[in-house]
């Protein structure tokens, strides 16, 4: 190593050390400034290149757009409990238990009529993959994604949000009312059938019901039901007869994005089967007794944080 390179090496190193420390000291003294809490949409957002860059998150947060793919919220008053969201959900995080009502409950804000109560409308945000499909299929747009993103919990069970506005007791009551109404109708039907039988002794009760079924395309399920329950309880059969017309009323509200006449109906059937079965309680037993804390209202509060 010659004398000049030895000296120039020292000079080079000294120079670069000074450049380095000047840079860090510049940042150190700029730390008195702090960036403003601007939304990313603000034109100044990318122009704040001096001063502290981080925000003291829980105490202050940058505003975010109103609709991101964050926590789901269901406006239960507008929900017709059509179950589409639960069906399209790729991770099955939406759990709905509908209860039929004898007559129309009310109208949603877009004019669709509500005919089902939601005994249970639970969304497990711990499972949710934030794909947003449920909000796309929702016919009444009651299911939306809000801008609340900070909702971690110590207990994973608290990640299940229940949007149903019925308490288990109320749900049971609605169910009773419906069963009662069904019974009355069935009796009326039976009477009518009896008079028909009198008129035409050879005809059997199930036969007239069949033509009613035909138009709906749910043959396989119906077949099963008939073989299971058909002979023993003609009464049950009759209740199914009652269902059929109702479904037809129900169908038009489902905006035609969906195939599901066939996928949908059987499911409603299944549910009704469960409900009709002599011991309805197990349906409501739902394991997850969620602390009442997480009602949608609370969510809104936390989402106004910024």
């Amino acid at each position, binding site marked *: 190593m010659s004398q000049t390179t030895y000296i120039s090496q020292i000079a080079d190193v000294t120079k670069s050390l000074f450049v380095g*420390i000047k840079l860090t000291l510049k*940042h*150190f003294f700029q730390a008195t400034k702090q960036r403003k809490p601007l939304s990313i949409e603000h034109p100044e957002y990318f122009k704040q290149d001096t001063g*502290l860059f981080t925000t*003291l998150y829980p105490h202050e947060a940058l505003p975010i757009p109103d609709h991101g793919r964050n926590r789901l919220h269901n406006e239960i008053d507008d929900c017709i409990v059509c179950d589409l969201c639960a069906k399209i959900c790729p991770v099955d995080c939406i759990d709905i238990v509908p209860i039929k009502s004898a007559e129309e409950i009310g109208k949603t804000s877009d004019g669709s009529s509500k005919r089902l109560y939601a005994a249970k409308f639970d969304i497990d945000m711990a499972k949710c993959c934030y794909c947003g499909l449920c909000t796309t299929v929702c016919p009444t747009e009651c299911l939306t994604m809000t801008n609340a993103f900070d909702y971690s919990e110590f207990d994973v069970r608290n990640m299940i949000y229940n949007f149903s506005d019925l308490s288990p007791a109320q749900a049971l009551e609605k169910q009773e009312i419906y069963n009662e109404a069904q019974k009355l109708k069935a009796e009326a039907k039976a009477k009518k059938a009896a008079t028909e039988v009198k008129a035409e002794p050879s005809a059997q009760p199930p036969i007239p019901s069949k033509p009613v079924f035909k138009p709906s395309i749910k043959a396989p399920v119906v077949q099963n039901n008939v073989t299971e329950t058909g002979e023993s309880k003609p009464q049950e059969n009759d209740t199914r007869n009652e269902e059929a017309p109702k479904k037809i009323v129900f169908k038009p509200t489902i905006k035609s994005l969906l195939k599901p006449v066939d996928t949908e109906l059987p499911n409603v059937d299944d549910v009704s089967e469960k409900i009709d079965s002599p011991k309805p309680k197990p349906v409501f037993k739902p394991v997850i007794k969620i602390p009442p804390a997480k009602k949608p209202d609370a969510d809104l509060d936390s989402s106004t944080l910024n």
Partner: protein
Amino acid sequence: MVALLFILPFILTFVVLGVWAERKVAGFIQDRYGPMEVGYYGIGQTIADLLKMLQKEDIVPSKADRSLFLIAPIVIFVAILAGYAVLPLSPSLIGSSVKVGIFYLLTIISLDVVGLLMAGWGSNNKYAILGAVRAVAQIISYEIPLTLSVLSVVMICQTLDLQEISYQQGILITNFPGVSTPQNYLFGIKALDINVTNVGGFLTWNIFRCPLLFVSFIIFFIASLAESNRAPFDLPEADSELIAGYHTEYSGFRWGLFMLGEYAMMLLVSFLAAILFLGSWNTPLPNIGSVRLADWTTGAPDTIAGNVIGFGWLVSKAFVLVFIQMVVRWTYPRLRVDQLMNLCWKFLTPIALGIVVLTAIWRLLMI
């Protein structure tokens, strides 16, 4: 005794605030906030950390050499604390005014190496032993330029007594009995015939009494970073390579002692640099004509005011150096082992040797 009772709590307070300050400096340099939650601007963060640390289990690995492992952190901290014994904290406050002050200090600090090796060896852990080996190699290597730069100061001042070195660098020079040449000339050159003995201030600091000592000061500062295992010379700890180096296996209070040792060492070398080069507890403000800034900012020795003001100046100089140490840590990347040795043996040591020769000549100009 008074000095010990004073310096021990002072070190502990410094460590508590120093760790916090270090995190703040790091944060600000990186455009972050640093700790913000505990107390005003997070000032109580270290206390919270300390409380957590003291509650942790004191784990001794089953395959460790138990006795070595247990006393290593104590050896390190004691060695560093013993170094404070000869530091003059103010014109009249010094632990032990021995004639061989700086010699004793450099020697006792070297015991630090024994503690590091005990910790690394006793842990029976490959990272720990690697860290310890690196620490020993590094500290022993850097002791040479460090000692040489101290030697150049000793040659200028003609004494090993740190208190005498302090007195020589200010207007109180005549108050210390037995100073060989109780006169200060500008840049130490008698031929210029500008007597600054009564001007004082920064003009009588060692780096002005002999401007060559400024180079010594730089060398001392670099070597002291290496001595205290601070970045960019933190190879012994090298988190990214060695987990935590020699204190990998330590937890709880003993780990805390290592931390205490590191920060106490930072403060010690900063004190030492201030005493040797930057005028010790003397004021940086000179007397300008009838504006007697130096007189006004210097208290008479043996008075409370003299002690408080002197200590204030010394501490503020030391803290500036500590701040530079912190900024350096968060600016420069860590050296490789070969670069470390290269820097020490090819640059610092020869330059320090050259300075020693030149200061010997400069000393001739001073008398």
